[in-house]
């Protein structure tokens, strides 16, 4: 036993470099002879570019070149593509207006790229950018979705009513019948607040072009370098893969925001071939706020039909989703297949129908942010179910229990396309109720009341779909790429191993977790294993890291490649030990011949593979280096229960989280320490959404929350210690039986927090509050309720 296999809380391999200041983030990299870029951005949300005069700026000190949208258009550079095609109710495809990397003729949001200034230093580039004279023809901006859908101002002239698509899922007639037969109908209107991802490392890129080989290189802050190579090479710049290397080195957090192919990547790569020198660009935080794709931003109306006993009969949902000014890489899939396919939640609701309209506005594009669609869905369901419990007069625990899918109902086909392979919501719910001492809550509420505080408890039970995805299913739903993962397991002559994975590690601990898989498989200690990722010239292929897919999809690829290595190694062992292959056993790093004392160590076999003097050369090739691609059979379905307890100060509206309990089923746990850390981080982002964070644009499209002084990031003293536990239900549709853990915290937690605040405020007659539930909003809700009650 190595002690570093599956299930061990191995300390992270990557920490040494990060703790000593030796990380290698994109902005830490400098290329010989590099120049620096500054991107000039639109200060207007919507304007025509009547003229762009760069003549003065071009003469400024240190300036090497300046390019505008007209220059890219002259080179017939393509638009940034969307990776997922959605169809309207009538079967017609969504509208995909052009998305030029540098704005041409029109700008459509504050921050839209207008020009790139390339100079000897960043300061010189920035100074010169101020000399560019632009005559903007300012147009009215359309910011809120209702105004956008009313038409009038159009973000894109060829998109009527700013509607990108109008999509539906589920059985409308069956739902109508369910509502006709219902004893109770509960409805709710909800806003899922727009969020700004805020990975701590701002986006950055360095491009290079080698004239002697026509080879392009791009270093970029990406979660998926191969996807960037594919999208930028094939669709935007027409560079074939063998001439384009994309490297995503250490990346300082992503949370979805670094999945997408951003304009700057294409602009820099294209410009490098013009100026024949490397170009470096690093965003300032203000640029991150204004130009990183935002998350969430839904408005929904939902109705739940119940029978007399409280059994759910039907669910009807209508959602408007803001996609911003342009379709970002996965902007169309998030509010559709990553959202409405989860509307069954953990419940047996037999009839579900949802319609989603997506809307262009003069705001930065909206795309996947930690959870991507599933937090929006979970928030809607768990607010609605909690409201139903109150209105129908059934305890919220009992209402959930009586409608939950039971363990013996798996695999469970939902009415909205997904088939949950395994799960046990009643079990995780029971554990969370126990861990949070739900039964003792009323005593704590009474005690708080004595000290003038309002105490509340909130529940969220959820399931999500991740481990994206079976390619065939994704393709049938409109994905324009496969979603498998690849691995290469290279055993070196002396038995150490390098694994090349197509996923990308930007905080998730893959260099440790993946090494544990190999340690388990080969029976060798983890210090003999290196995990390599992020460089398209080293790694054969990959679809990257998002949608909690790395272990669920990338892990089995590694495992399969390891198994191929073992199969081949057994043949070598059989030859050398003069036994039949069927008699060779492999365990704890040793190949043995069954029933004998013959054995060879893993390193002896690898050496034989590379020094094949005594070798079955007619049967197998030398070397020990295997590839595998793994395409999953189903999504994976983590789930669980989150319970939050808050105290509200009715005098100030300040809410404090007293305790937060999360019990999550993420399938098999490879590294418990890392899994807990992932849950903590997700919970912090969920609590942030529920209580602190909210993106605000004014009516003119100016971003009011454009810095850390205006956008409330969760800080250490805003958050509690989280009580986190995992409860694994095996049976996930992948050989590791893992389910994914990166997003569960952000998915499950927001409704638990808001339900807790509403529970605390219920005695005052407050029935609704929107996220973020800031002290101001809570205080206002209390005041409005007391005025209303006084009037009654």
């Amino acid at each position, binding site marked *: 036993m190595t002690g570093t296999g599956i299930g061990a809380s191995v300390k992270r391999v990557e920490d040494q470099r990060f703790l*000593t200041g030796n990380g290698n983030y994109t902005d830490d990299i400098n290329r010989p002879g590099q120049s620096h870029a500054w991107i000039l951005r639109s200060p207007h949300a919507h304007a025509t570019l009547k003229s762009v005069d760069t003549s003065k700026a071009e003469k400024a000190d240190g300036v090497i070149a300046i390019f505008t949208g007209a220059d890219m258009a002259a080179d017939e550079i393509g638009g940034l593509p969307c990776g997922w095609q959605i169809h309207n109710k009538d079967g017609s495809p969504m509208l995909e207006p052009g998305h030029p990397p540098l704005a041409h003729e029109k700008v459509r949001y504050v921050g839209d790229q207008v020009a790139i200034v390339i100079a000897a230093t960043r*300061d010189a580039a920035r100074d010169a950018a101020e000399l560019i004279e632009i005559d903007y023809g300012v147009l009215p901006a359309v910011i809120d979705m209702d105004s956008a859908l009313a038409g009038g101002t159009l973000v894109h002239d060829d998109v009527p009513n700013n509607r990108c698509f109008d999509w539906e899922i589920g059985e409308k007639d069956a739902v109508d019948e369910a509502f006709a037969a219902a004893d109770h109908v509960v409805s709710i209107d909800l806003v899922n607040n727009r969020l700004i991802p805020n990975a701590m490392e701002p986006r950055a890129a360095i491009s290079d072009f080698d004239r002697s080989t026509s080879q392009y290189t791009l270093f970029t802050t990406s979660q998926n370098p191969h996807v960037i190579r594919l999208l930028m090479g094939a669709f935007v710049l027409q560079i074939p893969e063998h001439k384009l290397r994309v490297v995503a080195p*250490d990346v300082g957090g992503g949370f979805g925001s670094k999945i997408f192919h951003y304009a700057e990547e294409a602009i820099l790569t294209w410009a490098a071939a013009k100026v024949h020198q490397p170009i470096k660009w690093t965003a300032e935080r203000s640029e991150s706020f204004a130009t990183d794709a935002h998350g969430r931003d839904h408005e929904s109306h939902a109705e739940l039909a119940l029978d007399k006993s409280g059994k759910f009969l039907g669910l009807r949902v209508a959602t408007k989703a803001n996609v911003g000014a342009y379709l970002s890489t996965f902007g169309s899939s998030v509010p559709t297949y990553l959202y409405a396919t989860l509307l069954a939640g953990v419940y047996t609701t037999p009839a579900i129908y949802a319609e989603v309209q997506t809307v262009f506005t003069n705001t930065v594009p909206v795309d996947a942010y930690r959870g991507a669609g599933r937090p929006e869905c979970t928030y809607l369901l768990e607010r609605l179910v909690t409201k139903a419990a109150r209105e129908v007069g059934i305890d919220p625990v009992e209402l959930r229990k009586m409608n939950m899918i039971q363990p013996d109902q798996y695999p469970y086909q939902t009415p909205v396309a997904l088939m949950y392979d395994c799960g046990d919501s009643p079990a995780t719910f029971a554990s969370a109720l126990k861990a949070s001492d739900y039964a003792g809550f009323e005593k704590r509420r009474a005690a708080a009341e004595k000290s003038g505080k309002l105490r509340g408890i909130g529940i969220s039970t959820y399931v999500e779909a991740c481990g994206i995805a079976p390619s065939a299913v994704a393709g049938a739903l409109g994905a324009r790429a496969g979603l498998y993962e690849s691995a290469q397991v290279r055993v070196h002559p002396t038995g150490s191993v390098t694994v090349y994975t197509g996923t990308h590690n930007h905080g998730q601990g893959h260099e440790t977790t993946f090494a544990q898989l190999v340690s388990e498989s080969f029976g060798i200690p983890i210090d003999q294993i290196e995990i390599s990722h992020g460089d398209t010239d080293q790694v054969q292929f990959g679809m990257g890291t998002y949608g909690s897919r790395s272990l669920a999809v990338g892990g089995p690829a590694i495992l399969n490649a390891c198994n191929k290595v073992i199969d081949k190694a057994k043949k070598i062992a059989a030859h050398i030990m003069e036994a039949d292959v069927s008699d060779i056993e492999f365990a704890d790093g040793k190949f043995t011949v069954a029933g004998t004392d013959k054995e060879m160590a893993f390193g002896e076999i690898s050496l034989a593979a590379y020094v094949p003097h005594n070798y079955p050369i007619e049967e197998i090739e030398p070397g020990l280096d295997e590839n595998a691609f793994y395409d999953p059979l189903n999504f994976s379905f983590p789930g669980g229960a989150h319970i939050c307890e808050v105290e509200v100060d009715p005098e100030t509206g300040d809410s404090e989280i007293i305790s937060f309990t999360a019990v999550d089923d993420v399938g098999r746990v490879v590294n418990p320490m890392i899994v807990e850390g992932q849950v903590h*981080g997700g919970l*912090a982002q969920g609590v942030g959404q529920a209580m602190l964070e909210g993106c605000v644009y004014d009516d003119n499209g100016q971003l009011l929350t454009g810095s*850390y002084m205006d956008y409330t990031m969760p*800080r*250490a003293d805003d958050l509690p210690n989280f009580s986190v536990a995992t409860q694994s239900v095996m049976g996930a549709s992948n050989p590791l039986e893992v389910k994914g853990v990166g997003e569960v915290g952000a998915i499950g937690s927001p409704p638990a927090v808001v339900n807790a605040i509403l529970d605390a405020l219920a005695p005052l007659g407050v029935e609704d509050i929107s996220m973020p539930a800031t002290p101001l909003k809570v205080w206002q809700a209390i005041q409005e309720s007391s005025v209303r009650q006084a009037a009654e």
Partner: protein
Amino acid sequence: MPTVSMTVNGKSVSAEVEPRTLLVQYLRESLGMTGTHVGCDTSQCGACVVHVNGESLKSCTMLAAQAEGADVTTIEGLANGDELHPMQEAFRENHGLQCGFCTPGMVMSALDLVQKNSDPSEQEVREWLEGNLCRCTGYHNIVKSILAGAQALKG
């Protein structure tokens, strides 16, 4: 351009810089010491915290020229060879980092807390971290790391 000289991690250094150069730019760009990070442009995030004359300071809030003659310690100056400083070790042991970007600032900030308060409470740690943002960890394990690091340093 003026020449700015100081001591960084015990070594005398000197470089010509534009007057507007910030201390963090001097460290990263003039000296190539990229362990100190830049996460924002409003002095909020704390990724750039270093010690100047023994006190923690956001190195984006100071011009390099203002640090003329100062004694500066960065994250690169903590470990003794491959042996981590007890606070670094506490972060490793307690999974106090994920993507690593805020980590240098967190560790440098934590060390200043501990030299001012050798036995901080959890609440004191949380309040001290007011000026350091992390998006990955939810702070849970950072707080745990700092509490453990403080105990380790008390010996």
